């Protein structure tokens, strides 16, 4: 996090330190418990996905640490085809969606970043009101239907293409860039597009990363738009497959030829393997997210 927190607050005098020891212990205990509440379930998910059938049966379903870790559950899940297809769908939606969202957000934010430019005030109002209310499920469904996007992958991208809050954050960032640089480029005869691509965007990598990550996480995690717009279950992305097999507990069939004679992994291991697969991209992005997100969410709050 870029914002330092308890700067300048020093521990009190040495005499007091002894008196405060129990308090410190309680604090440490509480924080440790908080962390365990987050870490232990995730550890158990990963462990169960890796555990061998015997251990899963002995433990009554879930294990905290696998004795003989194996990737059998993952092999079985990938051999099935349903999950593999769903992963491809989710990855494609996330990639295409993020690129389109980021591009249109950056263009819109830059188009609105010249104070006093023609039309920028009414467009800003349009933007701000879109943050204040959401159109509602039914009218949104009708628009998607009228545009002929039902059952099309575009229905997962276009309705959520622009997030007004992200545009505002990015516009704030653009406004904070040294205007002299832009003016200098303008005097040199650069057009708006070349200023954007040669001056502004290279200086804005941090904010592009933040906003891009926010969009990517939103695309990867969304399940309701697919439930609403995609009647064809074959097209479903990973989150909905996860819902079917893990939340709703549908039986996962395993193709016997994929097992090569080994016993089928228990349902719990298969379920947890699907869960881990859907977690992996978030965990891979997390270090990046971490570095930037607080900056992103605070940008609007701290500035101005």
């Amino acid at each position: 996090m870029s914002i330092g927190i308890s700067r300048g607050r020093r521990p009190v005098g040495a005499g007091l330190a002894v008196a405060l020891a129990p308090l410190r212990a309680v604090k440490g205990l509480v924080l440790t418990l908080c962390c365990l509440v987050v870490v232990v379930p995730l550890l158990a998910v990963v462990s169960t996905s890796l555990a061998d059938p015997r251990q899963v049966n002995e433990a009554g379903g879930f294990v905290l640490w696998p004795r003989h870790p194996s990737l059998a559950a993952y092999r079985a899940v990938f051999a099935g085809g349903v999950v593999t297809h769903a992963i491809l769908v989710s990855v494609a939606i996330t990639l295409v969606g993020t690129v389109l969202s980021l591009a249109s957000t950056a263009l819109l934010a830059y188009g609105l970043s010249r104070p006093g430019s023609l039309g920028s005030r009414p467009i800003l109002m349009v933007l701000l009101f879109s943050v204040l209310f959401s159109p509602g499920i039914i009218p949104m469904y009708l628009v998607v239907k009228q545009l002929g996007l039902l059952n099309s992958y575009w229905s997962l991208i276009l309705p959520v293409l622009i997030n007004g809050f992200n545009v505002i954050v990015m516009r704030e960032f653009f406004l904070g860039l040294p205007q002299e640089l832009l003016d200098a480029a303008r005097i040199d005869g650069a057009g708006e597009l070349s200023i954007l691509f040669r001056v502004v965007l290279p200086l804005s990598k941090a904010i592009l990363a933040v906003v891009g990550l926010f969009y990517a996480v939103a695309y990867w995690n969304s399940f309701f738009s697919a439930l609403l717009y995609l009647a064809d279950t074959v097209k479903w992305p990973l989150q909905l497959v996860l819902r079917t097999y893990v939340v709703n507990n549908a039986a996962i069939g395993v193709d016997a030829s994929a097992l090569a004679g080994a016993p089928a992994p228990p349902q719990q291991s298969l379920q947890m393997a699907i869960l881990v697969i859907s977690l992996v991209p978030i965990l891979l992005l997390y270090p990046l997210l971490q570095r930037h997100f607080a900056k992103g969410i605070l940008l609007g709050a701290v500035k101005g």
Partner: protein
Amino acid sequence: MAVDTAIGKAETTTRAVLAPPRRPSLRVRWRRDRTLLLIALPGLAALLVFHYLPLLGNVIAFKDYQPYLGITESPWVGLTNFRAIFTGDPAFLNAVLNTLVISMLQVLFVFPVPIGLALLLNSMASERLKRVVQSVLYLPHFLSWVIVVAIFQFMLGNTGLVNTFLHAHGGGGFDLIGNPGLFKELVTSQVIWKDTGWGTILFLAALSRVDPALYEVAQMDGASRMRQLWHVTLPGIKSVIVLVLILRLGDVLSVGFEQILLQQNAVGPHASEVLDTYIYNNAVVAGGWGVSAAVGLIKGLIGVALVLGANKIAHIFGERGVYQG
């Protein structure tokens, strides 16, 4: 509006430096700014089509909408669809009640937790340790609701990890998942698990802006740790607390749509139906499009009024409103 004034402020300061005092003619401005308008177009179009065009779709609140007839061909029925709201249809009232109860539970139990956690984190002496703890606690915010619900099921379900452990060690175990009587508590605890860490960010930022000199003065006056907390820390972050609370109250009609939709099958509508799921189930699942649109329209209008009202009140408290929401 709060955002507007903030932007206005930034604009006037920049304009004073950049632009000549007299505003150029429309033609000159068009020639100067047309590229900017052009590049704003794709995003603007998406906003208009998917945020403003749907407003027109609300006409079906006054129609007997039949999907095969389409919006224009479906017959007008006046205010018939609103009858469910005004005559107190039991399913609708149940949804309203559940929404308000869950919202209140969240204000009472979800809202204070990040404040406490932020105070705790803020009082940690080691910066590095604090960063590690933060990394762990922010993580659940980025997990999808499907994952969170799945994790709760297999940790706390009847055959889940905790119950299995309790049974194996002679304990009684408990019945939480799929129990209609405890559904609201379950939903609340899931929100706490997912978003408490994330919720600390605004409070930590506010805490970092409390003037350290105040603590030194308080210490010199012999104030204990508790007294410092009460007289220095809390007043320092009071405005942020009030702001977050007001904005939460402005959102009182929307509670965890995806989260609740995922878990309805196990507990039934009586315990779990909230306004958003009522609108969805009644229209898409049961075919009552007109009534759902009517409920959605009323909910949307009250929602906008609440958000604007909350923002106004936040403004009176000297804060900048939606900007931080």
